[in-house]
């Protein structure tokens, strides 16, 4: 009998995660790749690679459930045929609770956004996400690493060697940069600056997201930035308690949604929507166009599989997305809008 696995895909802004879990919800194969502008190709490449690794390890496999999450979850979901498309907050929280059942606070910092999730008694009670700008996220660190000329992977070690971290403005990359240049010219070492940077990132994160909310242990820190031991230490200093970095720290979102997809299929009793690994051979195109139906000029996204449109989104009224399904609520919404427009024209 072939091995039964569930597939989880987390399409983030900077990296894409593709993982397989077995019957016991353990990750048996996980990939962490840069998204590089074209998410569909990245997902396909990830699936092909993961497939070859996993079949060489376990022989034949059967995918029983598929889940997608991350900011590209909708695109990934329609391309591979997902059983569940879940927002990244729920997916991350689900995996963290699975790994550390008595967790109370989850820090999650990824490439473009950062989140804090509050858990009480195994359920999410509150969450916050960073606002518009990407200060205090992976991109911010990436950018600064490049500027200082230190490999991002070595950032953690550098900050651990620091003796006297300098204070750096963390709210905005522009201010941080001028601050860093100034401190460098005053004679601060790279170690002290990197440690100062880590502290400022954590300070900024806690000020922006935690905003006077109660931070209770246990703390779990996940997402790409949790790889950085310097940031972990800065978090521990700030909250005054141990901060757990789970073993699959970079893959938590994909892991969470793979488990959720399994639950979904178990409950509905339906066969998976997964289109099979043949999707990697299909041709997928995306098209963006401006709808000229009204003054909103919505950016409408169209996903085309082998010449056939499989999904639309982005339209506010449902004019395009309704073409593929006759969802009653959607139509109602379009009607409502139309009558509003008509009324106002009177």
């Amino acid at each position: 009998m072939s091995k039964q696995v569930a597939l989880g895909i987390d399409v983030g802004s900077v990296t894409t995660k593709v993982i397989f879990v077995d019957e016991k919800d353990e990750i048996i194969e996980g990939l962490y790749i840069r998204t590089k502008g074209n998410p569909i190709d990245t997902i396909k490449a990830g699936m092909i690679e993961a497939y070859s690794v996993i079949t060489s390890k376990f022989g034949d496999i059967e995918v029983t459930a598929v889940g997608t999450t991350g900011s590209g979850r909708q695109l990934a979901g329609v391309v591979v045929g997902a059983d569940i498309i879940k927002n990244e907050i729920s997916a991350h929280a689900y995996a963290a609770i699975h790994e550390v059942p008595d967790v109370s606070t989850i820090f999650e910092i990824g490439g473009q956004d950062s989140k804090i999730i509050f858990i009480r008694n195994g359920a999410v009670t509150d969450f916050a996400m960073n606002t518009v700008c990407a200060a205090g996220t992976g991109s911010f660190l990436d950018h600064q690493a490049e500027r200082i000329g230190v490999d991002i992977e070595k950032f953690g070690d550098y900050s651990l060697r620091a003796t006297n971290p300098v204070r750096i403005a963390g709210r905005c990359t522009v201010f941080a940069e001028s601050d860093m240049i100034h401190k460098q010219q005053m004679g601060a070492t790279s170690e002290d600056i990197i440690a100062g940077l880590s502290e400022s990132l954590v300070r900024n994160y806690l000020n922006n997201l935690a905003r006077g909310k109660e931070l209770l242990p246990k703390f779990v820190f996940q997402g790409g930035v949790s790889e950085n031991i310097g940031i972990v230490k800065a978090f521990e200093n700030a909250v005054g308690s141990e901060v757990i970095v789970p073993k699959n720290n970079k893959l938590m979102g994909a892991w969470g949604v793979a488990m959720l997809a399994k639950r979904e299929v178990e409950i509905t009793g339906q066969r998976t929507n997964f289109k099979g690994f043949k999707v990697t051979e299909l041709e997928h195109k995306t098209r963006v166009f401006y709808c000229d139906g009204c003054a909103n000029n919505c950016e409408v996204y169209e996903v085309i599989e082998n010449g056939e449109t499989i999904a639309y989104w982005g339209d506010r009224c449902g004019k395009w997305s309704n073409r593929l399904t006759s969802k009653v609520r959607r139509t109602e919404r379009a009607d409502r809008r139309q009558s509003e427009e008509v009324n106002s024209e009177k």
Partner: protein
Amino acid sequence: MKIGIPRALYFYVYYPMWYGFFSSLGHEIKLSVPTNKEIINLGVSHSVDDICISVKVFHGHVKYLLDKKDVDFVFVPRIASEEKYKYTCPKLAALPDLMKSAFVSDTNRILTATFYTRQGEKPIVKAFEEIERQLGDSDEKIKMAVKMGIRYQKLAVKSLRSGHTFLDVVKNIRDLDSLIKKPVQKQRYTVALAGFPYDVYDTFTNGDVISKLEDSGVGIVTTDMLDPKVYKHYSKYMIKDLFWYQANAAAKGGMYYIDSPDIDGVISISSFNCGISSIYQKLLDLYSKEIGKPVMHIIVDEQTGDAGLATRIEAFIDLIRVKRGDGLVAQTNNLHGTEDGVHVRSL
């Protein structure tokens, strides 16, 4: 005469009054279209830089109406006060002046009057008399028209109290009596929206929070549906009332909903840069911490991409689902297992 009414700011509170007044005098009413990208662009390019998006949007609606050559006047009332000792936000109180300075060549087409709406009928009559001096109707007719205006406003308030949103009121303005009788369908989950009516109901600027919730099977209630009497006692919690009626409605109404057992969560909606919103949001934060009900804040600005908003709302719905013991998976109204915004062809 043709009177243009901008669909922004106090439109979402007093439109029925204005409708009753102008229509009973036989004037034709021209509403601006619901906010869209074009209106936002117009507003942003005609307003000063550092005001909130809601006032910028108002600029856009006024410009839209001024550009219609058949509109004789654009109605820009100055709502000075809605309750004794309470005054409106200075930007709103200065609206006619802001408009006159933004659209200098059209100042004579801006129709204005100063309203003190919660101090009995007299000030309202006075305000409308001020308008009519500009339009030239007889005193008799004005008295009748004011009565009509007040009657419409009362019916609108009654519709709100029976659970209909202001958007329903606008849609059914000609037949509010039957709207009042129409029952509101109860959903499994109910989320309360706290905020100024113009932030809650401007579906374009706020990324259509109302439809996003309704599409996921969540019913909504808003703070303007509440009779101020029911949340009066929350003044004690705040030590002192806020100085603006609408801010009190958002703060205390939000607290009232936090305390209501049949409300699953509260979402506050405000525009970026709004000073008083940051105060009532903090008050709601503190209060929700005591009671333990989920509260989320949505702060809107010019952005139109709504991926971040969708994520927040989806996660908020997940949160209240789990709180009710419904779990994260197998949504009954969602056969393909996808969430709002995507439709997958059945396979």
